[in-house]
């Protein structure tokens, strides 16, 4: 079962990377990043079972805390971006990449 769990971990990380690469909706970008973190968590838990030690569980717990902190900041950033651009399209958030003066 541990081998299958690690295969599932790789599949989830790959689906997360595919979503982050191919979608332009910023919510789905964020949820893909969360999916990558979940796949990494599953890998840690499976490796902890494989080695018979509890360290992987602790690291998975710490990753969940980091994901919670990331959720707060990312969603606040989405609220701010939606207020200023009225869109969820990542192609419109190009203020740092543009050469023109910002028109706010």
């Amino acid at each position, binding site marked *: *079962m541990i081998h299958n769990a690690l295969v*599932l971990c*790789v599949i*989830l990380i*790959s689906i997360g990377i*595919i979503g982050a690469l191919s*979608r332009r909706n910023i919510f789905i970008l964020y*949820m893909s990043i969360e999916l990558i973190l979940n796949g990494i968590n599953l890998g840690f838990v499976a490796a902890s079972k494989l*080695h018979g030690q509890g360290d992987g569980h602790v690291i998975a717990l710490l990753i969940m805390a980091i994901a*919670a902190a990331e959720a707060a900041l990312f969603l606040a950033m989405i609220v701010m971006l939606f207020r200023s651009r009225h869109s969820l399209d990542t192609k419109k958030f190009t203020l740092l990449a543009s050469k023109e003066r910002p028109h706010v």
Partner: protein
Amino acid sequence: MSDTLFFILAALAIVGSIGMISMMQPMFSAISFIITLLALAGIYALLGSSFLFAIQIVIYAGAIVSLILFIIMFLNIKPENLPQEPSKNRFILLSSFAILPFSYLLISMLNFLPQQQPTPEAFGDIKSVGLTLFNDYLLPFEAISILLLISLIGAVILAQKERPIEISDKEPK
């Protein structure tokens, strides 16, 4: 029995995540993300970590996804606010072809796993996880408390009402 349960949960997790990256509406993709998270919680329970099973349900499916759903409803998203993605399926196909060699490499590396060690009696319950956390990982624990405080302050500052930014017409000298 547990293998059958594992395959059902793994299929649910994969279907939920594929649904998450292919839905147009963010609300639907958040709901199918919940399916993935709950299936992953069941897999944690099958792998013998009862503490992470509870934490996964409480923090991920309870707190983070409900925060996402709250923000989606709070923003009052109309269809014209969503990005137009006419070639979404082609992008998903192309990026999955780009990812395929790496995941094949990782999965073929899994054939060289070491032998499974026997697990101790109290494995993955709250007492052993807490003892490991406060004996060996005390410094990362404290660092994460500071990180949570900083992200709390940062979220409050980012989401507050926007003050009008004054941009003068004169060029800076």
